[in-house]
């Protein structure tokens, strides 16, 4: 997992609330067997059916921050939703409120989900719509979001912040101290089942 310290990039305004995971990535894409390459799946229905959809607008091309209405990521717990956002190039999603499971999945995978008050998100949406070249800085060290003339603190627990700063996914964390596993394995009961591997 890549370390996340400070990220600055342009942003896409997604003025929709209750964006559920089925809209983020439709169920048909869950049949794939890879862990990457889901960028084409992201918001597939909207991109295919709405020519004016924000991701179809050239002026927002190459943005790396997604700004959305409240309750982003509701619905089924598919981890693919996070993968699709990251594969497309997003490093941060900003919303007034996230669905719990989606938020948990995103922070584990290294996609920073930032909660700001609804009226602040509204101003950010207005600003990036007025000027798509607006650069938004998400500073995890200071736990701050900054853009032209605006500075706002956001909350994130110390443990999650530290993991993201260090770029440690769950596996990386566990493997920092493999001696615990080694020593536990010494104490396992001798009769426990094991398969012969080739």
């Amino acid at each position: 997992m890549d370390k996340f310290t400070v990220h600055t990039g342009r942003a896409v305004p997604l003025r929709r609330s209750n964006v559920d995971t089925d809209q983020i990535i439709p169920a048909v894409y869950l049949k794939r067997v890879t862990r990457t390459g889901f960028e084409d799946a992201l918001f597939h229905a909207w991109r295919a059916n709405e020519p004016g959809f924000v991701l179809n607008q050239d002026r927002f091309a190459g943005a790396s921050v997604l700004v959305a209405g409240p309750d982003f990521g509701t619905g089924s717990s598919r981890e693919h939703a996070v993968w699709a956002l990251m594969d497309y190039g997003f490093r941060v999603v900003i919303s007034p409120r996230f669905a719990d499971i989606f938020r948990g999945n995103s922070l584990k995978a290294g996609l920073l989900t930032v909660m700001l008050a609804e009226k602040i998100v509204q101003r950010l949406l207005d600003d990036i719509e007025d000027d798509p070249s607006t650069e938004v800085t998400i500073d995890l060290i200071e736990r701050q979001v900054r853009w032209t003339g605006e500075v706002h603190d956001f909350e994130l627990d110390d443990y999650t912040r530290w993991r993201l700063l260090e770029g440690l996914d769950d596996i990386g964390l566990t493997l920092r101290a493999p001696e615990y596993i080694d020593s536990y394995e010494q104490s396992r009961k001798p009769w426990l089942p094991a398969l012969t591997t080739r």
Partner: protein
Amino acid sequence: MGKTLAEKLWEGHLVHTAPGEPDLIYIDMHLVHEVTSPQAFDGLRLAGRGVRRPDLTLATEDHNTPTDYTLPLLGTSSIKDDVSRTQIETLRRNCAEFNIELYPMGDVEQGIVHVIGPQLGITQPGMTMVCGDSHTSTHGAFGALAFGIGTSQVEHVLATQTLPLDRPKTMAVMIDGELAPGVTAKDVILAVIAQTGTGGGQGYMVEYRGSVFEQMSMEARMTVCNMSIEWGARAGMIAPDQVTFDYLKGRTHAPSGADWDAAVEYWHTLRTDDDAEFDAEVTLDAAAISPFVTWGTNPGQGAPLSGSVPDPADYVEASDRISAEKALAYMGLEAGTPLRDIKVDTVFVGSCTNGRIEDLRATAEVLKGHKVADSVRMLIVPGSMRVKAQAEEEGLDQVFTDAGAEWRQAGCSMCLGMNPDQLAPGERSASTSNRNFEGRQGKGGRTHLVSPLVAAATAITGHLASPADLVKS
């Protein structure tokens, strides 16, 4: 204060614990199937990681496999659906690359992941077991801590043989007394779910306690633990006893010789202490449980077979009322209809809930000397190739085909619409599986969850029925 069985299992697998962090738990056995594993293996490759303990990892093919192929068959040409075939082929490649034992379609050991673990003696008391599959709770029947996990957790276990987890709370389900004749484990668990609701067990490791469970066979206990997830429980378990030990003795991976004696001595300690306390308790009266069937679109929407389709207007909670209204609309049912009057097109006996040899024996017992109604298609699908072989040795397959039922190869089959065994839109089934969600058995299909005894009687009469109804008519 003493400890509950769940607490003993949890504490016995603590690799590391620190304040403010989740516990790191050791996993004794990791079961793998084709649906939830591909991205986990891909994740390992992307990060340049390996599988820590291939010897504690076992893979099988079950969800996507067709059940009507002819043996011998080890290729994948019988799988017509591209996605299904890709998933199976990917599993085969991953197992070869990471050196993991795999039982492919057509292998003597192949079968539904939750059926093969116990039958190989791989599922033992005191173990922790996980699988990227919500019905992993099945293995709790042996006094193991077993639960389903998501794909990123599958990757975590492959890489480290551990999982970081917050410790769930504990709950006891207490059922004492005697079950009436014809009342099975399936009826018991459906009654539990109807009482607690589908979210009643959320956040709990549940221990099923009381004489009803003590008197059950291992296979019946598996049926109960299997459906723990259907009322939201993190895991379900039953303390091991002589029934457990007798079942295990002599199985391929069970301990033997001096190991066996040491194991049994240890297994005897796996009980909830008399002075232990559960965070919550649910009690049911055994005598009040009768054959149970579902009428709605979640496993909690069930009622005794002798009852009728409920009237949504009778529900106090608005959310229950709305969900009942939606369920009746989807199921095409009218409030007040006696459940026995509901006609079905299809009867499915199988799945990790009721696809074991005892289930097939019970089904055969009822079917013997009868014919499946002309209007009904009956599928009988063994949970594993070993179950299939055993059934054929006992001549059960003959009873099934004589009655006009179809006898298949092992797999998940009609439990879920991922392989060719599916309901057509609007078709109605009586099914021994575990989920009656909309579209679970095929798009637009309507599912009534039942026990094998009810399934067999229903196949004969063409409407929901129990074996007792056959005698009357």
